[in-house]
């Protein structure tokens, strides 16, 4: 009985530092999505475009981003780029690396979605004299969104967990806060709490994903 009370006391003692770490994780999460999703749509449109040079340049970008470890990219941006006089703050380095990495994954998802739309949709829009952008906005993107939602949701959940990699450049995120407490106090509890934190986050995201997919289920 005494033990349980002590555990609770200890948990509430370390909670402020865990919450501080959670705040870093959450703000990186939100800002990465705000940057990476629009960038991913633009790159995806470019990857599906009829201009070969654009397709090829973006192809190399996607290849590099998906072909090297995210951890390497983080280290490269924060520890590597200062050698050529490009210096980022820790937080900005993490944000930059995550945005360009996730935008590449999103771009491939959007490209696949765009290419799965029947070309006849563009043609029927054309004989109705809609412009290209009217067609994209009113007909193509709404259909692409519905197609890509499950894959986007998957990546978004991956992002929450991938963000724990920022420990390598010394950012105090949720995992690092727990790790510090465990090392200092020789107890498993902080890591268990961190695990519960991630589970709660992904549960909320899964719930949100289901809501959005339902919103798009009014047609087939």
């Amino acid at each position: 009985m005494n033990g349980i009370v002590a555990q609770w006391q200890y948990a509430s003692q370390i909670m402020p530092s865990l919450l501080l770490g959670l705040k870093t994780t959450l703000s990186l999460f939100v800002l990465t999505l705000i940057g990476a999703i629009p960038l991913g749509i633009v790159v995806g449109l470019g990857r599906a475009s009829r201009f070969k040079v654009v397709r090829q340049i973006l192809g190399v970008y996607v290849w590099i981003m998906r072909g090297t470890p995210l951890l390497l990219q983080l280290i490269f941006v924060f520890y590597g780029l200062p050698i050529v006089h490009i210096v980022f703050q820790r937080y900005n380095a993490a944000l930059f690396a995550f945005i360009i990495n996730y935008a590449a994954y999103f771009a491939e998802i959007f490209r696949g979605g765009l290419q799965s739309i029947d070309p006849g949709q563009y043609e029927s829009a054309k004989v109705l004299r809609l412009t290209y952008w009217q067609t994209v906005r009113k007909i193509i993107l709404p259909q692409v969104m519905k197609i890509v939602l499950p894959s986007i949701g998957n990546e978004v959940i991956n992002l929450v967990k991938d963000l724990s990699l920022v420990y390598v450049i010394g950012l105090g995120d949720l995992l690092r806060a727990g790790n510090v407490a465990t090392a200092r106090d020789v107890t498993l509890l902080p890591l268990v709490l961190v695990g519960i934190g991630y589970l709660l986050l992904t549960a909320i995201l899964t719930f949100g994903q289901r809501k959005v997919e339902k919103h798009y289920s009014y047609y087939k």
Partner: protein
Amino acid sequence: MLALKAINKSYGKRLILKQLSLTVNDGEVLAIVGPSGAGKTTLLRCISGLEPIDSGEIDLNGQPFDPYRNQNQDSVIGVVFQDFQLFPNLNVLENITLAPILVLKQPAATAKAKARQLLSRLALADKERLYPYQLSGGQKQRVALARALAMRPQVLCYDEPTSALDPNLRQEVAKMILSLKADGMTQIVVTHDLAFAREIADAVKHVTAL
């Protein structure tokens, strides 16, 4: 009146249309028949502006007219596609009013009122809130027709209007085309069904594979 004079069209090295000429008079129905691979659909795509012609001339009411580069906001040529190509993310009413609102700049209320008139004429009055996946093939075709008509085209084209439908709907399609003809609509119907062509058309144009 729509007139095509000595049209040539090839894809790469393959010649599809060679020195093709035809005329459709106002208010008439022209059927274009021929075996598959004869270039019927290509011809329709050239007329509706989805493909550029290589050479030749297209005249509309005596004036030279390039459907491929036409910048006129009036939809001169309307098309009912073989597979209809309704927009699955929009309901029936939105499918019909989208272009009149965005392209013809009609106020939404006007566009809706006109769409409802078309729908009741085509026996779809109670279907305006449904999405394309909830419609039968024949209903989809009539929505596609209403969508094309809402743009007030001068010429209306159909690509194989009977082929995606139940055979017993063939008569319905014929009735629909003839009823529009009674209103003075100029129509071009691509079909491989010669009997159907004779039933609906004032003139039949045969095309053959080259």
